[in-house]
């Protein structure tokens, strides 16, 4: 068990970063907070600044304009941090991989720990993905 899995067991604070998404993934993340899924019961919450976060959720494709910002946000994050790519866009580039404004897959820009595919992944699968990652032995 690495350090990351060891320290992140409970009450994860999550920062959400949209690199260039279509909003669906972002809304599904917000949806996790609302009464139906209510991740706050696990002590998880969305924070306003990456400096307070344990987990960085990245959605969307990295565009040429957001490239430097994504790197900057990652650098500002306290380490260790778990980076999770949400959605087909963040995992592979999805539909936008051939776009002229696509700055490369997310894992070429910053280290990514887990991928949750789907377009958009359902809130259930996001929760399942995070849990799977945390229970990894």
């Amino acid at each position: 068990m690495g350090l990351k899995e060891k320290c992140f067991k409970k009450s994860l604070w999550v920062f959400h970063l949209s690199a260039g998404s279509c909003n669906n993934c972002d809304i599904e993340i917000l949806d996790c907070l609302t009464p139906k899924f209510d991740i706050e019961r696990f002590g998880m919450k969305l924070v306003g600044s990456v400096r307070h976060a344990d987990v960085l959720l990245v959605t969307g494709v990295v565009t040429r304009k957001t490239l430097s910002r994504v790197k900057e946000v990652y650098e500002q994050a306290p380490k260790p941090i778990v980076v999770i790519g949400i959605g087909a866009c963040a995992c592979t580039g999805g539909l936008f991989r051939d776009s002229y404004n696509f700055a490369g897959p997310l894992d070429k820009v910053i280290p990514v720990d887990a991928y949750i595919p789907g377009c958009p992944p359902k809130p259930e699968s996001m929760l399942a993905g995070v849990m799977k990652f945390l229970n990894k032995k």
Partner: protein
Amino acid sequence: MGKKTVIPIGPYHPLLEEPEFFKLYCDGEIVKDMVWETGYNHRGIEKICQTKTFEQVFYVVERICGICSTSHPFAYANAVESIPGVEIPERAKYIRSIVGELERIHSHLLWVGLAGHFLGYNTVFMWAWKYREPILDMFEIITGNRNSYAMFTIGGVRRDINAEQATQLLKVLDDVKEKTDLLVGAVMDDPVIHARLKGVGVLTSKDIHDFGAVGPTARASMVDIDVRRDDPYAAYDMVNWKVILAKGGDVFAKAEVRLLEMYESIAIIKQCLEGLKKSNQGDIKIKVKEIPPGIGIGHAEAPRGEVFHFVKSDGGNSPVRHKIRAPSYTCIPTFRKSCVGGTVSDAAIATAAVDPCYCCTERMTQVYDYSTGKKIMNAAELIKLSQAKTRDLKDKKV
């Protein structure tokens, strides 16, 4: 000129999910000017569309914006179908309208929730999003996905709505109607909300014409435009409904328009379901063999206003030019009018009032010191400021 302060908001704004960047130039509490910078979300969609076949473009335009994932395909379908001039089957028209209106309800509920959050009413946020869930579940039952429905295709729709689904949908609609009553009550009768929203971010009908704003933003200033009525498409001329208008042009009027529009949407869906029953088991799509050379123009009323698509075909498999204009493109510039002259604490709700969608527009909020250009406040603080104002008002029992 006194010392001005610049407040930068963004590009990573904790609540509005998209990267966007605003600068508010302030003198004390008063916003003197603002600029915005966008383009963070530019993904080259128009270009990608030109590399896909006409059929595939539906799934690309759907991913322009997650909230309007019916409006873009709707406008695109209208555009592309206008080239060969096909008339889609009646059943397909009803189903298209149902999906379009369900999307309007879910989008407006989402807006009510976010507006509630900006004002410090987190209960409203939680409630509105909770009531939105049954609609998303309904989407999943009808279309197979909670968002990005992939429902439309050239010449009709891809899935039928059967009797069982129709009954389920009716039940969900009745529930949503009840919940809408509750939200309308919570917004219309609350003195604090009146104090926060009345007279804030006012846009006169002249401003609307100047900026070319559309949708609920325009209708809240008594500008009577709605594509669904003015140039009917799908089933909108086969059902009875009315365009909701409100006086005042302030944030309150915009909230009113959105809340009351939800009732209209519910009425439209119910009538469409009746229509589906009558047109019993007809075709849901006709075969369109090829798109002849020509130019197609289509528009549709998205929850935020008019979406416009232009498609040019040379008789081949894919569009040779595809141009998209989303409603936020004309609504966002109105920020200069609605925020300037107001206080900083009102800026968050005044910008949220047009329900800006940056992934549609590919555009970005911050507050800077005018003289030094230093960042002094971020969006989280701005929202906090806005929430504190509501708290003060509550304490004073206005």
